[in-house]
């Protein structure tokens, strides 16, 4: 029996997701498709089978498009409504939603923009749209990542100095490190500010300025950190040295290794102060869950 039901469901799915709508898809598929639909879905004086199926087709597209707009607000602002709409259309064709929750509808949008063959029109004007999508998805991921206690300043201060060289950092899970080609976080900051001030402005000079700046970005190396602390998601650009130190620590290498790297970058004299400043910053930002003498594979998983 499920053969008949699966045939019905596949037939309807094919028409619902057709990018130009049900009527156009039927026309494209020809008379057999039209006949099959009429044999499946009832038409009546109120509305044809095609008209009824269009309700679901519209809902499919607009519900997901709206969800994407919610998660990629700055990308939407940077592209404009029409282009974002077309991006959503192309994305849904390339990567149909597979996860049961709409929460994950945009999980491959950045990948789509940066790498998919049908996404070329969305990779420029301005450059960096893929980077912006990466940043905004990292914000989504940090928002509801697992909770974890973080260490206090006093707890850090109480560690025996003799132990530090072998200690390894354990970071909290709501933390994402990105390396972007364009400093798109500056645009997202402008967009965030605009959302706080007036989420539906007629015109916003600051955002216009940020759009102009976005269009002028030169390709470069822009390490970014996205994290959640006290239920608030934050992000900031990192200096290359801090980014490299953070990557060393994230990889599970020891504090001693981090200090050796710092010494090679800033000199033996400056390295201790620099390391102390990084530690203070990471602790204040709520990044550090703990320090351990154990290799990372032996550290207990998050609860």
């Amino acid at each position, binding site marked *: 029996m499920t053969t008949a039901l699966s045939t019905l469901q596949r037939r309807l799915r094919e028409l619902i997701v057709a*990018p130009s709508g049900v009527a156009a898809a039927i026309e494209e598929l020809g008379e057999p498709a039209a006949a099959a639909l009429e044999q499946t879905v009832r038409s009546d004086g109120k*509305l044809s089978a095609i008209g009824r199926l269009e309700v*679901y087709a*519209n809902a*499919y597209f607009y519900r997901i498009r709206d969800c994407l707009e919610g998660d990629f607000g700055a990308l939407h602002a940077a592209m404009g409504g029409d282009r974002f709409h077309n991006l959503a259309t192309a994305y849904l064709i390339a990567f149909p939603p597979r996860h049961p929750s709409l929460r994950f509808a945009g999980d491959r949008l950045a990948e789509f923009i940066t790498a998919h063959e049908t996404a070329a029109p969305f990779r420029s004007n301005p450059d960096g749209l893929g980077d912006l999508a990466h940043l905004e998805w990292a914000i989504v991921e940090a928002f509801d*990542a697992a909770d974890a206690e973080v260490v206090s300043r006093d707890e850090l201060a109480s560690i025996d100095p003799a132990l530090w060289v072998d200690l390894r950092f354990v970071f909290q899970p709501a933390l994402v490190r990105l390396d972007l080609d364009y400093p798109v976080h500056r645009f997202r900051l402008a967009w965030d500010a605009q959302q706080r001030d007036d989420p539906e402005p007629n015109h916003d000079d600051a955002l216009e300025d940020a759009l102009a700046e976005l269009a002028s970005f030169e390709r470069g190396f822009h390490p970014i950190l996205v994290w959640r602390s006290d239920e608030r998601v934050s992000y900031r650009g990192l200096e290359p040295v801090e980014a490299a130190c953070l990557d060393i620590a994230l990889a599970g290498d020891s504090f001693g290794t981090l200090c050796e790297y710092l010494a090679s970058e800033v000199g033996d004299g400056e390295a201790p102060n620099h390391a102390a400043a990084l530690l203070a910053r990471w602790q204040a930002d709520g990044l550090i869950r703990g320090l351990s003498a154990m290799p990372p594979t032996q550290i207990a998983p998050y609860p």
Partner: protein
Amino acid sequence: MRGRQGREIATGRLPGASLSPPPALHTSHSRDTSRGTTHPTPRTDTAAAMQDSPITRPAAASSLGFGVGLRPVHFPVILERVAQQQLRIDWFEIISENYMVPGGRPLRILDEIRSHVPVVLHGVSMNLGSTDPLDEAYLEGLARLADRVDPPWVSDHLCWTGVDAHNLHDLLPLPYTAETVRHVADRIGRVQDRLRRQIAIENVSSYLSYTSDEMTEWEFLTAIAEEADCGILLDVNNIFVSAHNHDFDASLYVDAIPIERIYQIHLAGHSVQGPLLIDTHDHPVRAEVWKLYERVISRIGPTATLIEWDDRIPSYGVLESEALLARSLCEDLLAHGDSESPRSARSPQVGQE
């Protein structure tokens, strides 16, 4: 660009309803939910209920009272009212999927609210009617959330939401056939075994019907609930919407559902779009739906009732007032013992067409 020719210029696709908003799927997808706590609410003893089957309506079905859907935009005011012990409703319902996440603020707030009032889990993605295999990872996540929240019951929809692992994020109707009854009832049975509790299934608003239908929607819903031995979440607005869209008598529907299966009622607003009514959850409950609700209550007595509002969400006070209106209607109705009581005349004031 195909999308521009298609979706973007949608005028005329649905007579009188160009670029209409999508029907509500009650997935207020917003970034806002922590750690397990234990809660003092009565819980359906599934094992006992299943052994006693058929037909034991959980006690909470008649005692839970009146609630609203929990939406992140209302978190601050709800937390304030909870802290001041000024919550005027009895319970909340959450969209399960929105809280099936590792951590963060929404889960923390859910735990806080749950420590004060019961919370029902209402899902949109169980995909009970699909021919795809049941999604074990999804059920695992749902079971974890249920353990955390300890809800009076868990519900989802009598529909299919995708096939071939392609999720359409919509509640699509099923053909009303004896074979579909067996297919869906078997899947509900496996879900109930997995969750170790009975679930309630909700009737959906539908905009199409199938030529292969062998029975009415209410016969279909009843047959599945009885074969699977599960509860029913009766969405009165959905009945009204589907009755209009498919030209059947809504009163026949509500009079036919076995009382002992009805765990809960949903009420919501809908929109008129061309020849169809669409379940948009963006208006107050309409007068005709209040009338139908009164008919249900007069037949089945006090039943857990919830107001859903998912688009153009009003202030919490407006949402709460809808739940309080439901309470007032029920109290008056049951005091008079007659659905045609004069009190019911005030319900049309809240509707608008």
